[in-house]
């Protein structure tokens, strides 16, 4: 199998398989979580704060006062990585075409120079976060195989995509195939690793906000 055949496999059956596993897993895991139900809080609510859960979904994206100074690497690294990754993912025209091919939705892209900058920023942020994870005693204690795997799964598409775009290797089709395959691996494992936070984060934040709301605490 040469690079192009691998690419065609990755664009065809591979993509279908990965997306299938991803969607399968996301739905399975979501049902699994939500179907556990909520243990009722028998205490009377101290306050009625409608929409607290929804508000928290958004408000939790900002660092609480003082935290930025306390953990600058985690916050800045996290922001740069997430924004860079999102810009690269959602505003590179070939990616938009992929989304159009799957969902039929489309929007204008950004010039490649900006995408390039966003990718580099995301890559550097990920490297900084990796070093942080290796050095910081708390993170190191909390980290297990799943954390290193998740990092690698996220880093691989950025690195292979960057290498493909800049033709670092002679065989472009193969590089592109590896890029797509790395994304497919990411998609397939997303529901079953901590990467599932891209979905469960919304539930977690909502519950948190809702619970806090009953206590009359603004979150």
């Amino acid at each position, binding site marked *: 199998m040469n690079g192009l055949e691998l690419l065609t496999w990755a664009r065809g059956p591979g993509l279908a398989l990965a997306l299938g596993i991803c969607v399968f897993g996301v739905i399975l895991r979501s049902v699994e979580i939500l179907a*556990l139900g909520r243990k009722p809080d028998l205490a009377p609510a101290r306050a009625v704060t409608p929409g607290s859960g929804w508000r*928290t979904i958004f408000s939790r994206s900002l660092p609480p006062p003082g*935290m930025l100074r306390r953990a600058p690497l985690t916050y800045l690294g996290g922001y740069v990585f997430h924004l860079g990754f999102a810009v690269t993912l959602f505003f590179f025209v070939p990616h938009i075409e992929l989304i159009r091919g799957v969902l039929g939705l489309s929007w204008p892209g950004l010039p490649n120079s900006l995408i390039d900058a966003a990718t580099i920023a995301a890559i550097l942020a990920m490297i900084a976060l990796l070093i942080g994870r290796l050095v910081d005693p*708390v993170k190191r204690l909390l980290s297990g195989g799943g*954390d290193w795997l*998740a990092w690698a799964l996220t880093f691989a598409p950025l690195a292979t995509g960057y290498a493909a775009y800049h033709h670092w290797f002679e065989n472009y089709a193969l590089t592109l195939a590896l890029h797509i395959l790395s994304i497919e691996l990411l998609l397939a494992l997303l529901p079953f690793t901590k990467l599932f936070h891209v979905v469960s984060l919304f539930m977690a934040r909502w519950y948190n906000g809702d619970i806090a709301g009953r206590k009359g605490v603004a979150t």
Partner: protein
Amino acid sequence: MSASFERGINAFKEVIDAPVASFFSSCVHCGLCAETCLFYTETGDPQYAPIRKLEPLRRTWFQEYTLLGRLAKLAGLSKPVTDEELAAWSPLVYDSCSMCGRCSMVCPVGNDLTLMIRKMREGMAADGHAPEGLITATTRAVTSGSPAGVKWVTVQAQTTPMKPPTAASRSALPTSRANSSAASSRRPRNSRSSA
């Protein structure tokens, strides 16, 4: 019926619900909860990272309530929670958490760690891993109405206009002193606290 490991795990199973599952699913091990925990900030000991305190509960959730975890347990890939483990976690769950709620306020993915600590304590208690002092206090509270074991006469003595101390009122004091010294002896071992 005495406390037992089975009862503890059973309680874990009872308290794990959708919020808990979503919290554990969302954790990215960023460590920010530690940055807000006084036990960590004062000691610098990573084991006080709040999410770390919930590890037995997390594993119970994973093994009991997720497909992947059930399979992993079947395949022997995920080691089950043990009584010894719970014993080891007891100081973390009880003595190293003041339930101040700061971690729940900063967690970027929205985990309510305080809630989970509270839930975990239900199981820990059913397992008999509540701290000895707390058990005593609780027993006293139930039996005598005062966790500190203060009897009505003592209260009366305290509330009546000052008189020279009597032998009866003096006899109540050593008990409370003994309690507080027991609590301080359970201080975390690795403490470098200057407090």
